[in-house]
């Protein structure tokens, strides 16, 4: 869940899933996971369901894009963020601190030890049409213990404004007593990464983007002296930077984090029987107005052949690139 833009709400409310769901009216009651214990550390993962870009076309009038028949999906980075949360929760349960993240790290290497006294729960939070619940239930099958779904309708202008989306998410998080918030660095339809830092600013929390790894520091989920900390690695330009993080904090995970887990059919069947907490939030007035849409202009290219065998052609190419000041 990293962008406000791009994905307008799917047309129509659709048929809701035939599974239990509870709705929390605007401003009423906390959105905290129902099963959370009093001392639980709540990890919230923000998920954005968006139409697959390849399935989106211009409408016949060319005044709007048509995503009616597009397959909707949770973005890869968002699913990576969920995997980071899942591994942190697994490690906490095992009392280990082997780390969540890194390509291929998976859940392997969970350290042995005494289980933490602190329960760690993973709640997925998303904002979108009720029909998206079918997609979002995959999160329940791949690590989330709760699914919170903001179903307040968003019109196209509001959905395209990251500030509107971030404000609603921050309001919902404010009611959920989160300890750590994870999101993807880029969404399925855009790759702008605006919502994460905005949510962090609205909550008054620190933010780190480009996260590829997170693990419990000494003391695991219980922490040393009761204050649990995380060790986080993030990609910043050409550098890999290590942070010591004391939550609450917002972490945006990029696509180089641990590979998202695929749900088995049995896990999906179980997920479809789990309840969904439906929430409503206030929708702020959008500040952006979409005036027109166009297909991306395809840049006119030179199509200049470079003759010669490999080494000669490469030397000539490099001279041309220098001439154009791109190397």
């Amino acid at each position: 869940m990293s962008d406000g833009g791009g994905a307008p709400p799917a047309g129509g409310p659709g048929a809701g899933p035939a599974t239990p769901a509870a709705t929390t009216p605007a401003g009423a009651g906390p959105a905290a996971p129902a099963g959370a214990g009093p001392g639980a550390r709540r990890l919230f993962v923000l998920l954005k369901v968006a139409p697959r870009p390849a399935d989106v076309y211009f409408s016949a009038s060319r005044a709007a894009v048509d995503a009616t028949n597009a397959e909707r999906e949770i973005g890869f980075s968002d699913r990576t963020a969920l995997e980071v949360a899942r591994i942190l929760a697994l490690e906490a349960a095992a009392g280990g601190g082997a780390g969540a993240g890194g390509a291929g790290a998976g859940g392997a290497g969970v350290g042995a030890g005494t289980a933490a006294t602190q329960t760690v729960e993973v709640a997925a939070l998303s904002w979108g049409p009720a029909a998206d619940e079918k997609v979002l239930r995959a999160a329940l099958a791949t690590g989330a213990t709760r699914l919170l779904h903001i179903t307040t309708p968003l019109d196209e202008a509001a959905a395209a404004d990251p500030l509107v989306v971030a404000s609603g998410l921050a309001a919902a998080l404010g009611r959920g007593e989160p300890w750590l918030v994870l999101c993807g660095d880029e969404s399925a339809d855009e790759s702008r990464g605006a919502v994460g830092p905005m949510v962090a600013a609205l909550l008054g929390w620190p933010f780190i983007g480009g996260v590829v790894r997170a693990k419990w520091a000494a003391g695991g989920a219980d922490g040393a002296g009761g204050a649990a900390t995380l060790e986080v690695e993030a990609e910043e330009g050409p550098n890999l930077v290590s942070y010591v993080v004391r939550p609450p904090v917002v972490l945006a995970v990029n696509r180089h984090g641990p590979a998202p887990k695929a749900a088995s059919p049995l896990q999906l069947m179980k997920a479809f029987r789990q309840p969904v907490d439906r929430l409503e939030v206030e929708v702020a007035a959008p500040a952006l107005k979409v005036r027109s849409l166009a297909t991306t202009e395809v840049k006119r290219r030179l199509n200049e052949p470079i003759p010669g065998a490999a080494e000669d052609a490469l030397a000539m190419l490099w001279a041309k690139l220098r001439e154009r000041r791109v190397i």
Partner: protein
Amino acid sequence: MPDTRIIGELCDGCGECVRACPFFAVDVVDGKAALAESCADCGICAAACPQGAVAVPGGAAGTGPARGAAGRGAWVWAGGDAAGEIDPDAAAVAAAARAAVEVEGEPVAAVLPWEPAGGAAALATLGVDEVIVIPGGDQPAAVAAALAAALAAEKPRLLLGSAGAAARRAVAGAAALAKVAFAAGVLELEVSGAGAEFTRLIYGGRFTARVSAAVPVACTLDRRAYGRPRAGGGAPPLRTLEVAAEGGAATGAESGGSVTRRKVGPLTQAVPLAEARMVLAGGPHLAPAQGAAEAFALLERTARALGGAAACDRQAAEAGLVGGVPVVDAASGATIAPDVYIALGLEGSPTHNGAVARAKVVVAVTQNDAAPIMTGADYVISAEPMAVLQALAKMAGVA
């Protein structure tokens, strides 16, 4: 309902307000202006009305986006990732900011959360009229809160940041706190009067959206929107702006959360694909299947040695040829905008070509004259892709 009102006795139905409104919220009905529900009370129509026939409510600040209350000039976020650092792209963003506001001769200032480690010499490279230091510490929340308070105090018309992570963190965070319109990845930007229009990519780069908003506006720029930095010039004047976060805005200290930057090292892999200036991409025809693993390993090493990143197309990934090399494909939202994109042994599907449409220069290395990548390339080398990769590796000093 909007609080803005049309004074019917004064309105002559000239339509200036209709043309000025960035929200399409005004129309002329029966010879008089009429406001729609979508009116944002921004006041732009009032400023445009030659008859003074629009009454805008006062005291609305703080209840919604702080629109229509901008002062002058553009600010460029120039803070880097670590204390004392300057964003390496700040000068290019400053050049873009100057182009956006130069029509009205407004100043461009660089804003930083700290005095740069490089001193006056570092500031001289920015090409700005002024440097403003807004002390915010090293905690991201505090930096964003201080910047938001400074925006409210000085009301620049524009706040721009680069495509880098530090700028995104500060500019997006400050825009959220100051309730200023924000857009990321802006390709083109125009500021005129009290409104701004910009173009951004949506749906994996398949479409562009032209978006408008009332100033002040905060944006992070796509690399293609960068300007050419001004050469020369002395160090601009520097002032420190001490501001208190307004309205109890959180600064991070209250939450108890903190981040401590501990250790910096080079990436074990090449530069992240999205940030790479040079990308070497391999396709299914880079090498025969039995040699593909070695070929893509060489591709990665060569890309790293050239300071860039390796990539592949979806066809190579789905054939299981590429190991962990990331895919470039608009269908999955993986679009890139490097300075140089070299495609080796790659056909160029429509979604692949769409994903690299923003590259400054595309080079195709293929022996297939009918490959779609040929028409989307600036330079075409009709040599054996693997031979060209080996020549590149040799040139880059890769064993």
